[in-house]
């Protein structure tokens, strides 16, 4: 897979004496949906933070579409089209859903004039389409902070799509979402992947979701890469079972 979209090569990150990530290597090919699983505290979110430039890594390198992004900062990486969502759901609480969507449009063109530009009607139309897509159209003039947690999660997903990314890192997209809505969300993630061509790397605790969604899965435990393979392979891997059941 030399044409991989995202290459994480031997990345290590420690916080004081705690080794959060030890020599993690993984690859995601264009158009793939890859799952990242592991018990709590196994270093999944740390790895996401390392990839998007939230903190510097201790060693290793990260490539996005063949470009070295190890030393880039968060907004720069985001503008390349590699976007992440947050585990603790982050939206702009005092702004309406539509405002949240408008400001999420990618602003890749530099220059002072771009900063003051008005939003063309096409932006609003696109925002409404995407809100419709995640089922929040009727809430579009509510303040984002007044939405329920699950709705905020959906809004955050719509905002990410509004940005038109090449690849999305989703940190537990179904956490806190009503079980009956989860199937709908899986369907939407698949459609975003198939119709919009967005490559997905998904952290997920819900085994049913990740086994259904992902084509390949990486499993972390104690900051190390434990297993990788198809959902069936990972599911039957004795190390993975051990890590999850705690017989260590």
């Amino acid at each position: 897979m030399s044409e991989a979209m995202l290459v994480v090569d031997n990345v290590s990150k420690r916080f004081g004496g705690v080794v959060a990530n030890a020599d993690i290597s993984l690859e995601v090919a264009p158009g793939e949906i890859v799952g990242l699983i592991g018990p709590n505290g196994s270093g999944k979110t740390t790895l996401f933070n390392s990839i998007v430039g939230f903190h510097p890594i201790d060693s290793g390198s990260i490539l996005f579409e063949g470009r070295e992004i190890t030393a880039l900062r968060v907004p720069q990486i985001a503008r390349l089209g590699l976007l992440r969502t947050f585990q603790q759901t982050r939206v702009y609480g005092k702004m309406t859903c539509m405002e949240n969507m408008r400001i999420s449009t990618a602003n890749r063109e530099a220059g002072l004039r771009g900063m003051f530009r008005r939003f063309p009607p096409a932006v609003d139309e696109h925002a409404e389409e995407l809100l419709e897509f995640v089922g929040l159209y009727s809430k579009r003039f509510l303040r984002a902070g007044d939405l329920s947690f699950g709705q905020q999660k959906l809004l955050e997903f719509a905002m990410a799509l509004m940005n038109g990314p090449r690849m999305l890192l989703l940190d537990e997209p179904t956490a806190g979402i009503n079980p009956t809505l989860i199937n709908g969300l899986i369907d939407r993630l698949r459609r975003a992947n198939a119709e919009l061509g967005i490559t997905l790397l998904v952290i997920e605790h819900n085994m049913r979701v990740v086994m259904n969604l992902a084509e390949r899965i990486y499993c972390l435990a104690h900051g190390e890469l434990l297993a990788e393979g198809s959902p069936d392979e990972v599911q039957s891997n004795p190390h993975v079972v051990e890590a999850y059941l705690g017989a260590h």
Partner: protein
Amino acid sequence: MPNRNELAIFLAVAVAGIAAPLVLPGYTTQFAFLWVMVVFALTWDVLGGQMGYNSFGNVVFFGLGMYVCAVVQIAPFTDLAEYTSASGTQDIGLSHGQYYLGLAVGCSIAAVAATIVAAVLGSGILALRGHYFAICTLGLGIAAGEIAAGIDLIGAGSGMVTPLYPGGIGSRERFFYFLFLALAVVVFLTLRSVYAGRFGLAINAIRDDEDKAEAMGIRTTRYKTVAWCISAFFLGIAGGLVGNIVGFIDPTEVAFAGATFGVWMVLMAILGGKGTLWGPVLGAAVFHVTQEVFWTYLFGWQRVALGLLIVLIVVFFPQGILGWLRERYPERFGHRIEPAEGASREGA
């Protein structure tokens, strides 16, 4: 585009603004300062309200503008060091043309100088967040006053006298009144316009969640710096004009007056409702009128009364007047749930 309600308010304010000094000429200076207060509150709210960065140092740009403008007005006509050491006894006798040209050039250079200082300071300290930024700007305001009080060329601690207005008695007040009215209108319309575009939503996003804004690729540092530059630009002009209407620049009481102007900016914006367009205007009007009334009827106790008012504002109107109205009458002032025809932006 303004809707019909807004247009009516614009019209009412314009009529009142133009009529005020003609109907009550005795109060022209007080009315002029009303518009100064509006400019203070509006420019403070760019960072403090819309962007969520509480700045206690905006008075730096105001004082800087005041000194820069005065120097530009005086230096071409006489030796600056001699002029300031004569502390007001030397009249350089400017003609009408010299005075107006000097004021225009002075204010322009003041605006540019303040903007440059904001860009330089901002690129450094706007990386600080929350309370750290607030404390840092508080230090800036105090330091600026002390520095100005140490420079002999601009009169050091004993201050500086601005050039005499060449016109007759009473005409000076009216001249500056209309300049301040125009400045306030320009500031309001400029902010109204930039808030409606990408800039407004970007600084709102920074207020609500700066980490998220960065994760979405927004150039936060650039937006923050430009926001401060916009404030500084207008405060520089305001400073240049205020120096001329007051007639005397004291480094810590007039120019870098952190304890009065510096605090009032914050209070007026909070009183009216920070983070809204009309809130700071409303807050400035209410605050200024109240303050003038205290000076007139509670003389000797006016500072105590003002302090009490500040406490009452913070305790009972933490959201400001407009914020309170929005909560109380959401259907009239709040965010709309259903869009009005062709509405592109909700709320005031």
